[in-house]
């Protein structure tokens, strides 16, 4: 990383949040370049593990954004994701990580401005926290160890 801005990963569902992020681009809205989007077919695919792994990989903040409630393309994926995020959010402080670093949002595909706003706000929010401790992860998962 070549700058000191907080590093953020945003898990976005294909149908709504990812489309909203695209719309932010179409509208040429600005947000910090350290927000990186990973596309999921649905936030229902979001494994709680991805959230922890994102922090392990070095993220300072994680955004999960799914469809508006009741509008999930896959009926209930966003509701499942919301619960998983809540569980991890309650776990984080017990690991010494501020829960504010993780947030779940509901977005419609028309909310390009909201996406940009979230990206800016999360960046600001994380900047206001003291930096995460720890060096780059030394240990790797079992694949490497074995």
């Amino acid at each position, binding site marked *: 990383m070549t700058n000191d801005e907080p590093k953020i990963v945003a898990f976005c569902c294909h149908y709504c949040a990812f489309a909203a992020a695209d719309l932010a681009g179409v509208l040429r809205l600005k947000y910090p370049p350290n927000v990186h989007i990973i596309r999921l077919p649905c936030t229902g695919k979001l494994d709680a*593990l991805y959230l922890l792994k994102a922090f392990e990989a070095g993220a300072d903040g994680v955004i999960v954004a799914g469809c508006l409630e009741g509008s999930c393309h896959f009926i209930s994926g966003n509701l499942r994701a919301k619960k998983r995020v809540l569980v991890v959010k309650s*776990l984080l402080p*017990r*690991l010494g990580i501020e829960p504010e670093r993780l947030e779940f949002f509901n977005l419609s595909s028309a909310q390009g401005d909201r996406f940009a706003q979230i990206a800016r706000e999360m960046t600001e929010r994380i900047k206001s926290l003291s930096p*995460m*401790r720890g060096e780059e992860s030394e*240990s790797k*998962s*079992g694949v490497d160890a074995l």
Partner: protein
Amino acid sequence: MIVADQKPIEEILQMLEPYRKVLFLGCQSCVAVCMAGGEKEVGLLAAAVRLARKQQGRPIEITEGAVKRQCDDEFNEPWAQTIQQHEAVLSLACGVGVNKLSERFDVPILPALNTRFFGEVERQGVWAEVCAGCGNCILHLTGGICPIARCAKNLLNGPCGGVRADGTCEVSRNGPRPCAWVMIYERLGKLSQRQNIENIFAAKDWSSDRHGGPRKRVREDMLLET
């Protein structure tokens, strides 16, 4: 199925305190089904522990794995070499798995779970205790509802005076629960076996329960040694 809970992360971190290289070994049987110690939980717990230790400035190296059933040596054996390469093993199996690994390996085997009870799946995400494993089953007399497990007082001749007007038990650890004996009464009615309720159970012989010391079961015909 055996139902277990993951220990609080704080307790697990404390257990792991002395170690820098640990194998997290899950079990893909009961505890996977009750979402406490399957491969998914191994991944989550390992990531959480790594993160916490990194935050503490004391990184830990974790190897992740899961075996089909930790209560069988044969499933554990392929892990022998790996286990010996680690300072400790955090077992995400039930207590049986922890014991089994400890019998076999000279490495500290740490329990990640609190083993709770034999349970049924009430619905997705909810497990309930319905059998106590007392070793002396009377379910045929009680309409298939076990008073040992499901009556807070393990009464054989219930209900007691602690049943409320709405049929719930005065002991309500996890919220109001129906009185087991009211359930038995109603169930026997449905089965036209209400006369069973008239039977007075003699004092139970608890020697078949764990109160009689550790239990063992042997099936002679299945023994391979001659």
